[in-house]
Protein backbone atom coordinates (compact mmCIF):
# COMPACT_ATOMS: atom_id res chain seq x y z
CA UNK A 1 0.00 0.00 0.00
CA UNK A 2 2.73 2.45 1.01
CA UNK A 3 6.23 2.38 -0.48
CA UNK A 4 8.79 4.88 0.72
CA UNK A 5 12.18 4.95 -0.98
CA UNK A 6 15.22 6.91 0.15
CA UNK A 7 13.10 9.67 1.62
CA UNK A 8 14.86 12.82 2.79
CA UNK A 9 12.99 15.73 4.36
CA UNK A 10 13.48 18.48 6.87
CA UNK A 11 12.44 21.96 7.88
CA UNK A 12 13.55 25.20 6.26
CA UNK A 13 16.96 25.95 7.67
CA UNK A 14 16.68 23.04 10.07
CA UNK A 15 18.78 20.53 8.21
CA UNK A 16 17.58 17.08 7.33
CA UNK A 17 15.46 15.24 9.82
CA UNK A 18 14.80 12.27 7.56
CA UNK A 19 17.64 10.96 5.48
CA UNK A 20 17.46 7.90 3.27
CA UNK A 21 14.39 6.41 4.89
CA UNK A 22 12.90 3.25 3.37
CA UNK A 23 9.63 1.83 4.54
CA UNK A 24 7.04 -0.39 3.03
CA UNK A 25 3.61 -1.04 4.50
CA UNK A 26 1.59 -3.85 2.96
CA UNK A 27 -2.14 -3.48 2.37
CA UNK A 28 -4.29 -4.25 5.39
CA UNK A 29 -1.36 -4.13 7.80
CA UNK A 30 -1.21 -2.30 11.10
CA UNK A 31 2.35 -1.05 11.40
CA UNK A 32 3.76 1.05 14.22
CA UNK A 33 6.87 3.18 13.91
CA UNK A 34 8.71 3.48 17.19
CA UNK A 35 11.53 5.77 18.16
CA UNK A 36 12.68 8.37 20.60
CA UNK A 37 11.65 11.99 20.37
CA UNK A 38 13.51 13.87 17.69
CA UNK A 39 14.29 10.84 15.59
CA UNK A 40 11.87 11.83 12.84
CA UNK A 41 8.57 10.15 13.56
CA UNK A 42 6.44 13.25 13.18
CA UNK A 43 8.48 14.43 10.23
CA UNK A 44 7.85 11.09 8.54
CA UNK A 45 4.11 11.40 9.11
CA UNK A 46 4.01 14.94 7.78
CA UNK A 47 6.09 13.98 4.78
CA UNK A 48 3.73 11.13 3.92
CA UNK A 49 0.59 13.21 4.21
CA UNK A 50 2.18 16.03 2.25
CA UNK A 51 2.37 18.81 4.84
CA UNK A 52 6.12 18.66 4.41
CA UNK A 53 7.86 18.38 1.07
CA UNK A 54 10.33 15.58 0.50
CA UNK A 55 13.68 16.94 -0.62
CA UNK A 56 14.69 13.55 -2.03
CA UNK A 57 13.22 10.12 -2.53
CA UNK A 58 9.79 8.89 -3.48
CA UNK A 59 6.54 8.03 -1.76
CA UNK A 60 4.22 5.58 -3.47
CA UNK A 61 0.62 4.92 -2.50
CA UNK A 62 -1.07 1.87 -3.96
CA UNK A 63 1.39 1.85 -6.85
CA UNK A 64 1.05 5.56 -7.65
CA UNK A 65 3.87 7.99 -7.06
CA UNK A 66 2.46 10.75 -4.84
CA UNK A 67 5.73 12.48 -3.96
CA UNK A 68 4.95 15.70 -5.78
CA UNK A 69 1.31 16.01 -4.78
CA UNK A 70 -0.11 18.62 -2.43
CA UNK A 71 -1.50 17.34 0.84
CA UNK A 72 -5.13 17.71 -0.20
CA UNK A 73 -4.46 15.65 -3.33
CA UNK A 74 -2.90 12.92 -1.24
CA UNK A 75 -5.88 12.97 1.11
CA UNK A 76 -8.15 12.64 -1.89
CA UNK A 77 -6.14 9.60 -2.98
CA UNK A 78 -6.88 7.90 0.30
CA UNK A 79 -4.58 9.07 3.06
CA UNK A 80 -6.23 9.87 6.37
CA UNK A 81 -4.19 11.77 8.93
CA UNK A 82 -4.48 12.04 12.70
CA UNK A 83 -1.85 14.55 13.72
CA UNK A 84 0.09 14.82 16.92
CA UNK A 85 -1.84 17.02 19.29
CA UNK A 86 -5.05 15.99 17.52
CA UNK A 87 -5.78 19.39 15.96
CA UNK A 88 -9.50 19.03 16.01
CA UNK A 89 -11.51 22.16 15.17
CA UNK A 90 -12.13 23.30 18.71
CA UNK A 91 -14.75 25.92 17.90
CA UNK A 92 -16.84 23.56 15.78
CA UNK A 93 -19.31 21.06 17.12
CA UNK A 94 -18.38 17.41 17.21
CA UNK A 95 -20.81 16.74 14.38
CA UNK A 96 -19.22 19.47 12.27
CA UNK A 97 -15.78 18.02 12.85
CA UNK A 98 -16.99 14.70 11.54
CA UNK A 99 -18.80 16.26 8.60
CA UNK A 100 -15.74 18.21 7.55
CA UNK A 101 -13.75 14.98 7.52
CA UNK A 102 -16.29 13.68 5.08
CA UNK A 103 -17.03 16.58 2.77
CA UNK A 104 -13.37 17.47 2.40
CA UNK A 105 -13.24 14.60 -0.07
CA UNK A 106 -15.05 15.03 -3.35
CA UNK A 107 -17.59 12.35 -4.12
CA UNK A 108 -18.56 11.46 -0.58
CA UNK A 109 -22.04 12.15 0.73
CA UNK A 110 -22.04 14.58 3.68
CA UNK A 111 -23.83 12.17 6.01
CA UNK A 112 -21.50 10.56 8.52
CA UNK A 113 -21.84 6.76 8.23
CA UNK A 114 -23.63 5.14 11.09
CA UNK A 115 -20.99 2.49 11.75
CA UNK A 116 -18.53 5.22 12.54
CA UNK A 117 -20.78 6.64 15.22
CA UNK A 118 -21.39 3.15 16.58
CA UNK A 119 -17.66 2.72 16.81
CA UNK A 120 -17.32 5.91 18.85
CA UNK A 121 -20.57 6.17 20.81
CA UNK A 122 -19.27 9.05 22.91
CA UNK A 123 -19.10 11.20 19.81
CA UNK A 124 -22.67 10.47 18.85
CA UNK A 125 -23.69 11.34 22.37
CA UNK A 126 -21.90 14.69 22.30
CA UNK A 127 -22.45 15.58 18.69
CA UNK A 128 -23.88 19.04 19.44
CA UNK A 129 -21.15 19.93 21.88
CA UNK A 130 -18.16 22.17 21.11
CA UNK A 131 -15.27 19.90 20.26
CA UNK A 132 -12.89 22.02 22.33
CA UNK A 133 -14.80 21.15 25.48
CA UNK A 134 -14.15 17.42 25.12
CA UNK A 135 -11.56 15.69 27.24
CA UNK A 136 -8.24 14.73 25.68
CA UNK A 137 -9.23 11.12 25.11
CA UNK A 138 -12.50 12.12 23.53
CA UNK A 139 -10.73 14.60 21.31
CA UNK A 140 -8.39 11.85 20.18
CA UNK A 141 -11.32 9.65 19.28
CA UNK A 142 -12.83 12.55 17.41
CA UNK A 143 -9.61 13.11 15.46
CA UNK A 144 -9.53 9.45 14.46
CA UNK A 145 -13.19 9.41 13.57
CA UNK A 146 -12.73 12.58 11.53
CA UNK A 147 -9.97 10.94 9.53
CA UNK A 148 -12.00 7.75 9.10
CA UNK A 149 -15.01 9.74 7.93
CA UNK A 150 -13.09 10.45 4.74
CA UNK A 151 -12.92 6.71 4.06
CA UNK A 152 -9.15 6.51 3.69
CA UNK A 153 -7.17 3.56 2.42
CA UNK A 154 -4.24 4.42 4.62
CA UNK A 155 -4.59 5.90 8.09
CA UNK A 156 -1.64 7.78 9.58
CA UNK A 157 -1.63 8.30 13.33
CA UNK A 158 0.96 10.41 15.09
CA UNK A 159 1.28 9.48 18.76
CA UNK A 160 -2.39 8.86 19.38
CA UNK A 161 -1.70 7.83 22.98
CA UNK A 162 -0.10 11.15 23.87
CA UNK A 163 -1.62 12.67 26.97
CA UNK A 164 -4.36 10.12 27.27
CA UNK A 165 -5.43 7.95 30.19
CA UNK A 166 -4.22 4.37 29.97
CA UNK A 167 -7.71 2.91 29.94
CA UNK A 168 -8.65 5.07 26.95
CA UNK A 169 -5.40 4.14 25.22
CA UNK A 170 -6.45 0.52 25.40
CA UNK A 171 -9.88 1.36 24.10
CA UNK A 172 -8.51 3.30 21.16
CA UNK A 173 -6.00 0.61 20.27
CA UNK A 174 -8.69 -1.99 20.37
CA UNK A 175 -10.89 0.01 18.09
CA UNK A 176 -8.11 0.51 15.57
CA UNK A 177 -7.45 -3.22 15.55
CA UNK A 178 -11.12 -3.85 15.01
CA UNK A 179 -11.25 -1.47 12.06
CA UNK A 180 -8.19 -3.01 10.46
CA UNK A 181 -9.64 -6.47 10.87
CA UNK A 182 -13.11 -5.65 9.61
CA UNK A 183 -12.41 -3.18 6.81
CA UNK A 184 -8.95 -4.01 5.63
CA UNK A 185 -7.73 -0.47 6.32
CA UNK A 186 -3.98 -0.01 6.34
CA UNK A 187 -2.64 1.79 9.43
CA UNK A 188 0.72 3.41 9.99
CA UNK A 189 1.18 4.74 13.49
CA UNK A 190 4.04 6.63 15.10
CA UNK A 191 4.11 5.88 18.78
CA UNK A 192 6.12 5.66 21.96
CA UNK A 193 3.49 4.24 24.21
CA UNK A 194 3.92 0.50 24.13
CA UNK A 195 0.42 -0.10 25.44
CA UNK A 196 -0.82 1.27 22.16
CA UNK A 197 1.35 -1.17 20.24
CA UNK A 198 1.90 -4.39 22.11
CA UNK A 199 -0.80 -6.85 21.25
CA UNK A 200 -2.47 -4.54 18.78
CA UNK A 201 -0.13 -3.73 15.91
CA UNK A 202 1.02 -6.36 13.43
CA UNK A 203 4.58 -5.33 13.07
CA UNK A 204 6.98 -2.63 14.18
CA UNK A 205 9.56 -0.47 12.53
CA UNK A 206 12.17 1.41 14.52
CA UNK A 207 13.25 4.83 13.41
CA UNK A 208 16.64 6.14 14.45
CA UNK A 209 18.26 9.35 13.26
CA UNK A 210 16.00 9.84 10.31
CA UNK A 211 16.11 6.33 8.89
CA UNK A 212 14.45 3.00 9.55
CA UNK A 213 16.89 0.98 11.62
CA UNK A 214 14.88 -2.18 11.73
CA UNK A 215 11.49 -3.18 10.42
CA UNK A 216 9.17 -6.15 10.30
CA UNK A 217 9.61 -6.82 14.01
CA UNK A 218 6.66 -8.58 15.58
CA UNK A 219 4.70 -6.29 17.84
CA UNK A 220 3.65 -8.93 20.33
CA UNK A 221 5.96 -9.18 23.30
CA UNK A 222 7.83 -6.01 22.53
CA UNK A 223 7.49 -4.99 26.15
CA UNK A 224 9.78 -7.79 27.12
CA UNK A 225 12.32 -7.05 24.41
CA UNK A 226 14.72 -5.13 26.63
CA UNK A 227 17.49 -4.82 24.08
CA UNK A 228 15.34 -3.15 21.44
CA UNK A 229 13.54 -0.99 23.98
CA UNK A 230 16.82 0.18 25.34
CA UNK A 231 18.36 0.71 21.94
CA UNK A 232 15.52 2.56 20.23
CA UNK A 233 13.41 3.96 23.03
CA UNK A 234 15.98 4.40 25.79
CA UNK A 235 13.79 2.41 28.15
Amino acid sequence: MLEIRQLAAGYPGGGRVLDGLDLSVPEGAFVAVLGRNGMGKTTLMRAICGLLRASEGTIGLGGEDITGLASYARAQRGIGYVPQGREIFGDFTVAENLTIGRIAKPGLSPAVPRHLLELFPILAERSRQRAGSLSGGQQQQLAIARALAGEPRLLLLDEPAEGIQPSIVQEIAQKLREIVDTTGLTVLMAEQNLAMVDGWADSLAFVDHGAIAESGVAAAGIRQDQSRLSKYLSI
Partner: protein
Amino acid sequence: MHVTGVEAPAPLLKVDGLAKRFGGVVALSDVSFELEEASIHTILGPNGCGKTTLFNVIDGSLRPTAGRVEFAGQRIDGMTAARIARLGIARKFQVPGVFGELSVAQNLETALACHGGRYGVGALLRVRPDAVRRDELADLCGLSAKLQVRVSELAHGEKQRLEIAMLLAGDVRLLMLDEPTAGMSVTETEAVAALVRQLRDERGLTVLIVEHDLHFVRSLAEPVLVANEGRIIARGDYETLRHDPRVIRSYLGEGADA
Protein backbone atom coordinates in the same frame (compact mmCIF):
# COMPACT_ATOMS: atom_id res chain seq x y z
CA MET B 1 32.08 25.10 43.70
CA HIS B 2 30.57 21.85 44.79
CA VAL B 3 27.48 22.53 46.77
CA THR B 4 25.83 19.17 47.07
CA GLY B 5 27.01 18.73 50.64
CA VAL B 6 25.26 21.83 52.02
CA GLU B 7 22.73 21.01 54.73
CA ALA B 8 19.01 21.45 54.04
CA PRO B 9 19.17 24.54 51.89
CA ALA B 10 16.02 26.58 51.31
CA PRO B 11 14.37 25.51 48.09
CA LEU B 12 15.28 27.63 45.07
CA LEU B 13 12.10 26.77 43.23
CA LYS B 14 8.87 25.86 44.91
CA VAL B 15 5.88 24.78 42.87
CA ASP B 16 2.66 24.40 44.80
CA GLY B 17 -0.65 23.03 43.59
CA LEU B 18 -0.15 24.14 40.04
CA ALA B 19 -2.97 23.50 37.58
CA LYS B 20 -3.56 24.48 33.98
CA ARG B 21 -6.53 23.71 31.80
CA PHE B 22 -7.13 24.39 28.11
CA GLY B 23 -10.84 24.12 27.49
CA GLY B 24 -11.75 20.52 28.25
CA VAL B 25 -8.15 19.36 28.30
CA VAL B 26 -6.39 19.20 31.65
CA ALA B 27 -2.68 19.74 31.04
CA LEU B 28 -1.61 20.12 34.68
CA SER B 29 -3.54 19.19 37.76
CA ASP B 30 -2.12 19.84 41.19
CA VAL B 31 1.63 19.73 40.56
CA SER B 32 3.80 20.35 43.62
CA PHE B 33 7.54 19.97 44.08
CA GLU B 34 10.60 21.78 45.36
CA LEU B 35 14.09 22.11 43.97
CA GLU B 36 17.08 22.78 46.16
CA GLU B 37 19.82 25.11 45.06
CA ALA B 38 22.49 23.47 42.90
CA SER B 39 20.52 20.31 42.29
CA ILE B 40 19.64 18.51 39.11
CA HIS B 41 16.18 17.10 38.66
CA THR B 42 14.66 15.37 35.73
CA ILE B 43 10.97 15.28 35.13
CA LEU B 44 10.32 12.05 33.40
CA GLY B 45 7.16 11.21 31.64
CA PRO B 46 5.60 10.10 28.41
CA ASN B 47 4.73 12.60 25.71
CA GLY B 48 1.63 14.55 26.60
CA CYS B 49 2.02 14.26 30.36
CA GLY B 50 2.14 18.05 30.72
CA LYS B 51 5.91 18.55 30.93
CA THR B 52 6.12 21.38 28.42
CA THR B 53 3.07 23.10 29.90
CA LEU B 54 4.76 23.00 33.29
CA PHE B 55 7.79 24.77 31.81
CA ASN B 56 5.55 27.32 30.12
CA VAL B 57 3.89 28.14 33.42
CA ILE B 58 7.15 28.43 35.34
CA ASP B 59 8.84 30.71 32.80
CA GLY B 60 5.87 33.04 32.44
CA SER B 61 4.67 32.04 28.98
CA LEU B 62 1.37 30.89 30.48
CA ARG B 63 -0.58 31.87 33.54
CA PRO B 64 -1.60 28.95 35.74
CA THR B 65 -5.27 28.22 36.30
CA ALA B 66 -4.48 27.61 39.95
CA GLY B 67 -1.51 27.26 42.26
CA ARG B 68 1.68 29.23 42.82
CA VAL B 69 5.33 29.26 41.83
CA GLU B 70 8.03 30.67 44.08
CA PHE B 71 11.61 31.30 43.05
CA ALA B 72 14.25 32.16 45.66
CA GLY B 73 11.48 33.00 48.08
CA GLN B 74 9.65 35.30 45.69
CA ARG B 75 6.33 34.53 44.09
CA ILE B 76 6.76 34.62 40.31
CA ASP B 77 3.58 33.30 38.76
CA GLY B 78 1.89 36.19 37.00
CA MET B 79 5.17 37.97 36.27
CA THR B 80 6.16 38.68 32.69
CA ALA B 81 8.50 36.26 30.99
CA ALA B 82 11.18 38.94 30.78
CA ARG B 83 11.10 39.61 34.49
CA ILE B 84 11.27 35.94 35.35
CA ALA B 85 14.21 35.57 32.99
CA ARG B 86 16.00 38.44 34.71
CA LEU B 87 15.57 36.73 38.07
CA GLY B 88 17.79 34.02 36.68
CA ILE B 89 15.53 31.43 35.12
CA ALA B 90 16.64 30.36 31.68
CA ARG B 91 14.69 27.97 29.59
CA LYS B 92 15.71 25.96 26.61
CA PHE B 93 12.93 25.36 24.14
CA GLN B 94 12.23 22.08 22.47
CA VAL B 95 12.39 23.76 19.08
CA PRO B 96 15.66 25.68 19.39
CA GLY B 97 14.94 29.21 20.58
CA VAL B 98 17.45 30.92 18.34
CA PHE B 99 17.02 33.83 15.95
CA GLY B 100 17.12 32.43 12.44
CA GLU B 101 17.54 35.74 10.65
CA LEU B 102 20.57 36.70 12.73
CA SER B 103 24.13 35.46 12.53
CA VAL B 104 25.65 33.21 15.19
CA ALA B 105 27.62 36.16 16.53
CA GLN B 106 24.49 38.29 16.74
CA ASN B 107 22.63 35.51 18.51
CA LEU B 108 25.34 35.22 21.09
CA GLU B 109 25.45 38.97 21.43
CA THR B 110 21.72 39.15 22.05
CA ALA B 111 22.22 36.81 24.94
CA LEU B 112 25.45 38.42 26.15
CA ALA B 113 24.46 42.05 25.95
CA CYS B 114 22.23 41.77 28.97
CA HIS B 115 24.87 39.99 30.98
CA GLY B 116 25.28 41.71 34.33
CA GLY B 117 21.74 43.02 34.35
CA ARG B 118 22.26 45.70 31.71
CA TYR B 119 18.94 45.56 29.99
CA GLY B 120 18.23 49.22 29.31
CA VAL B 121 18.63 50.91 25.95
CA GLY B 122 21.37 53.21 27.22
CA ALA B 123 23.39 50.27 28.44
CA LEU B 124 22.78 48.42 25.20
CA LEU B 125 24.03 51.35 23.17
CA ARG B 126 27.14 51.82 25.28
CA VAL B 127 28.06 48.30 26.14
CA ARG B 128 30.60 46.43 24.08
CA PRO B 129 29.74 42.85 24.90
CA ASP B 130 32.62 40.83 26.15
CA ALA B 131 34.13 39.40 22.96
CA VAL B 132 36.34 36.99 24.84
CA ARG B 133 33.33 35.58 26.61
CA ARG B 134 31.52 35.46 23.28
CA ASP B 135 34.28 33.43 21.72
CA GLU B 136 34.32 31.12 24.72
CA LEU B 137 30.64 30.49 24.26
CA ALA B 138 31.13 30.00 20.53
CA ASP B 139 33.83 27.46 21.31
CA LEU B 140 31.55 25.82 23.83
CA CYS B 141 28.91 25.20 21.18
CA GLY B 142 31.49 24.43 18.52
CA LEU B 143 30.50 27.29 16.27
CA SER B 144 33.53 29.55 16.41
CA ALA B 145 34.16 28.94 12.72
CA LYS B 146 30.61 29.95 11.85
CA LEU B 147 30.23 33.27 13.65
CA GLN B 148 29.06 35.10 10.53
CA VAL B 149 26.70 32.39 9.33
CA ARG B 150 22.98 33.04 9.49
CA VAL B 151 21.50 30.74 12.06
CA SER B 152 18.75 29.55 9.75
CA GLU B 153 21.51 27.89 7.72
CA LEU B 154 22.79 25.82 10.64
CA ALA B 155 22.01 22.17 11.22
CA HIS B 156 19.52 21.26 13.91
CA GLY B 157 22.12 20.01 16.37
CA GLU B 158 24.17 23.19 15.94
CA LYS B 159 21.13 25.27 16.80
CA GLN B 160 20.53 23.22 19.91
CA ARG B 161 24.09 23.81 21.06
CA LEU B 162 23.90 27.48 20.20
CA GLU B 163 20.80 27.86 22.30
CA ILE B 164 22.40 26.27 25.33
CA ALA B 165 25.41 28.55 24.91
CA MET B 166 23.05 31.55 24.77
CA LEU B 167 21.33 30.49 27.97
CA LEU B 168 24.65 30.24 29.72
CA ALA B 169 25.59 33.78 28.77
CA GLY B 170 23.45 35.40 31.43
CA ASP B 171 23.34 35.21 35.23
CA VAL B 172 21.44 31.97 35.36
CA ARG B 173 20.45 30.30 38.60
CA LEU B 174 17.86 27.87 37.31
CA LEU B 175 18.28 26.24 33.95
CA MET B 176 15.26 24.52 32.46
CA LEU B 177 15.92 22.17 29.59
CA ASP B 178 13.03 20.86 27.50
CA GLU B 179 14.06 17.51 26.02
CA PRO B 180 17.69 18.47 25.45
CA THR B 181 18.53 15.10 23.93
CA ALA B 182 15.72 14.84 21.41
CA GLY B 183 17.16 13.57 18.18
CA MET B 184 20.56 12.74 19.64
CA SER B 185 22.45 9.48 19.64
CA VAL B 186 23.35 7.63 22.83
CA THR B 187 26.88 9.05 22.95
CA GLU B 188 25.62 12.57 22.38
CA THR B 189 23.09 12.02 25.13
CA GLU B 190 25.82 11.08 27.54
CA ALA B 191 27.77 14.18 26.58
CA VAL B 192 24.78 16.33 27.44
CA ALA B 193 24.47 14.59 30.79
CA ALA B 194 28.12 15.30 31.50
CA LEU B 195 27.70 18.94 30.51
CA VAL B 196 24.72 19.35 32.83
CA ARG B 197 26.64 17.89 35.75
CA GLN B 198 29.60 20.09 34.95
CA LEU B 199 27.39 23.17 34.99
CA ARG B 200 26.01 22.26 38.36
CA ASP B 201 29.39 21.46 39.82
CA GLU B 202 31.32 24.38 38.40
CA ARG B 203 28.72 27.12 38.37
CA GLY B 204 26.32 25.97 41.02
CA LEU B 205 23.40 25.95 38.62
CA THR B 206 20.12 24.36 39.49
CA VAL B 207 18.90 22.36 36.54
CA LEU B 208 15.42 21.12 35.77
CA ILE B 209 15.14 18.84 32.79
CA VAL B 210 12.12 17.48 31.05
CA GLU B 211 13.01 14.24 29.42
CA HIS B 212 11.54 10.94 28.43
CA ASP B 213 14.76 9.29 27.45
CA LEU B 214 15.60 6.79 30.18
CA HIS B 215 19.19 6.37 29.03
CA PHE B 216 19.78 9.99 29.67
CA VAL B 217 18.16 9.90 33.07
CA ARG B 218 20.19 6.89 34.03
CA SER B 219 23.50 8.34 32.90
CA LEU B 220 22.70 11.54 34.75
CA ALA B 221 22.10 9.62 37.99
CA GLU B 222 20.25 12.43 39.72
CA PRO B 223 16.80 12.65 41.37
CA VAL B 224 13.81 12.11 39.16
CA LEU B 225 10.24 13.34 39.28
CA VAL B 226 7.87 11.18 37.34
CA ALA B 227 4.95 12.92 35.72
CA ASN B 228 1.89 11.43 34.20
CA GLU B 229 -1.49 12.83 33.26
CA GLY B 230 -0.68 16.26 34.56
CA ARG B 231 0.65 15.35 38.00
CA ILE B 232 3.84 14.24 39.65
CA ILE B 233 3.27 10.60 40.50
CA ALA B 234 6.60 9.64 42.02
CA ARG B 235 9.87 11.12 43.17
CA GLY B 236 13.17 9.42 43.87
CA ASP B 237 16.31 8.20 42.23
CA TYR B 238 16.24 6.37 38.97
CA GLU B 239 17.24 2.96 40.20
CA THR B 240 14.43 2.93 42.74
CA LEU B 241 11.88 4.30 40.38
CA ARG B 242 12.60 1.91 37.57
CA HIS B 243 11.01 -0.81 39.66
CA ASP B 244 8.06 1.33 40.73
CA PRO B 245 5.01 -0.20 39.05
CA ARG B 246 3.38 3.21 38.57
CA VAL B 247 6.37 4.34 36.57
CA ILE B 248 6.52 1.19 34.55
CA ARG B 249 2.86 1.47 33.75
CA SER B 250 3.20 5.02 32.61
CA TYR B 251 5.94 3.98 30.26
CA LEU B 252 5.03 0.55 29.08
CA GLY B 253 1.31 0.86 29.43
CA GLU B 254 -1.40 -0.86 31.42
CA GLY B 255 -0.85 -4.51 32.09
CA ALA B 256 2.89 -4.35 32.00
CA ASP B 257 4.58 -5.80 35.02
CA ALA B 258 8.18 -6.30 34.08
